[in-house]
């Protein structure tokens, strides 16, 4: 397949890591400046201290790069990213996971890699993660429930892991499985979903450079409620595709049966690409609420990553393959 190179990024658009870590401080200063010089929308924008673009794509050195044409979008505060989560393994309320996560994830944590690949085996998660250089990515996360966030992740591209495990020619899809352990995950004691949670990607999606295996956010180890110790992040798909707390990665020939698709096939497809044109049967996907904002904003095709990923789906009827 052809992987299109992201646009050349001007160095002026690179935001240093320390700046986004200290974003609140900078914004506070910017706000004071703006107030001093009478508050106008332009005053804040002109300061350009801590605002971030969410179109970040990986650069050669793994630095933070902002893609052009996506406008300036602020990071969702760490507090919100870590207290508003859909993680049914810890309860169906959005605030349940942060409350009931306890000492999860307990070590040792093993990731099993099997199926059609050369390097199958059981790997300790820390050993596995240590094999691949970590980098930062700022991505939008668009939930199928029509809310969204902008999150700075740390992790490594799934393609690096796949290059290492060497899929055979029979591998057409990658299937991921979340831990099943009702002892650590109280939500699994209810039958609200078919446990364990399973997700999957087509091989070209899995190999796409935007597809990330995340192990941290905001420069910290991934919190339990965000899918520690290792999770998938596929920024152009609805959030439920980005499976959390992975214990198994399997290379398979057939399209995997995924959890939400099993639960409600009419509502959640295998592809689940963010698409403002194709509504959920029960609600509109045309707009979304960015957490922290009051007014809804329009949802972008492929969550704003169309330039990078639309070619993967050329010729496909996206209404049928929702």
């Amino acid at each position, binding site marked *: 397949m052809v992987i299109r190179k992201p646009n050349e990024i001007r160095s002026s658009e690179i935001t240093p890591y320390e700046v986004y870590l200290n974003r609140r401080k900078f914004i506070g200063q910017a706000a004071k400046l703006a107030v001093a010089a009478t508050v106008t929308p332009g005053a804040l924008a002109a300061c350009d201290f801590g605002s971030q673009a969410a179109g970040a794509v990986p650069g050669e050195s793994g630095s933070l790069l902002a893609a052009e044409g996506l406008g300036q979008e602020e990071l969702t505060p760490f*507090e*919100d990213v870590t*207290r*508003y989560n859909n993680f*049914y393994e810890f309860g*169906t309320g*959005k*605030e349940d996971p942060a409350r009931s996560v306890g000492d999860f994830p307990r070590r040792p944590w093993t990731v099993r890699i099997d199926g059609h690949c050369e390097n199958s085996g059981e790997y300790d998660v820390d050993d596995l993660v240590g094999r691949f250089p970590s980098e930062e990515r700022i991505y939008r996360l668009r939930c199928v*429930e029509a*809310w969204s966030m902008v999150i700075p992740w740390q992790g490594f591209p799934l393609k690096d892991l796949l290059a290492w495990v060497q899929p055979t020619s029979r591998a057409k899809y990658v299937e991921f499985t979340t831990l099943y352990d009702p002892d650590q995950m109280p939500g699994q004691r*209810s039958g*609200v*979903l078919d446990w364990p949670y399973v997700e999957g990607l087509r091989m070209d999606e899995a190999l796409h450079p935007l597809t990330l295996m995340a192990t941290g956010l905001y420069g910290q180890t991934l919190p339990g409620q965000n899918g520690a110790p290792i999770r998938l992040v596929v920024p152009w798909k609805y959030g439920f595709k980005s499976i959390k707390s992975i214990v198994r990665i399997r290379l398979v020939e057939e399209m995997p049966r995924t959890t939400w698709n099993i*639960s*409600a096939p009419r509502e959640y497809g295998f592809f689940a690409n963010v698409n403002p044109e194709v*509504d959920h049967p*029960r*609600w*509109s996907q*045309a*707009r979304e*609420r960015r*957490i*922290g904002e*009051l*007014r*809804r904003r329009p949802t972008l095709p492929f969550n704003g990553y169309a330039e990078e990923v639309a070619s993967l789906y050329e010729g496909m009827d996206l209404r049928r393959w929702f």
Partner: protein
Amino acid sequence: MRKPTPDFPLKTSVWILGLSPLGWGAWSFFSDGLGANPVEALMHLAGRWALAFLLLGLAVSPIRRFTGWGRVIKVRRLLGLFAFFYAATHLLVYLGLDQGFAWSFILEDVVERPFITVGFTAFLLLLPLAGTSTRGWIRRLGRRWRLLHRLVYPAAGLAALHFYWKVKADTSWPLLVAGLLAVLLFARLPWGGFRKKSGARKRGGLRRDGSAPEREAGRSPLGTVGRLLEG
């Protein structure tokens, strides 16, 4: 000042219960206690309490019937009006905070999304009930008032369906609401369960044919949204 009536403790309790979700919501809103998505939190809060007060209002008749506690009727209108108040708040949060009064999107939602269609319909059904809850309207409409207020049954059914269709996978709460509603409606049927021999009927309960004695409507200072709750 009026002297406290024997109903004073009951009515006061309902007022306190009715206003506390509002107070809690307002306090949380201003103290950042509503979490990462305050609009959604407010909408859910109002919606759930609308359902709760609908169920409480619908529980009045069965309580009277099975316990003989006649005075409970005095808070039926209040319960009904609180149900309407929270339903209206729920709708306003949706229209204003959630949708930003973007009427084209709202119209599309109401027309095309069944869960919103039924929720909106439930609200429209409650509207005339709240509007005719005064003593003046009860007198003016006479027998038709009771007929009109039977709209609360479809309204409650649609509200429960709205809740059920809204959730993604965890249907336990919607099913509990639907179950309670079913019990409350079943308890109204002439053959629904046993009938207390003395008590209810003597203190102005239902007649054998299921109708309430006329004197009750005129006498009760609170005959109301609630009255329609009686069938």
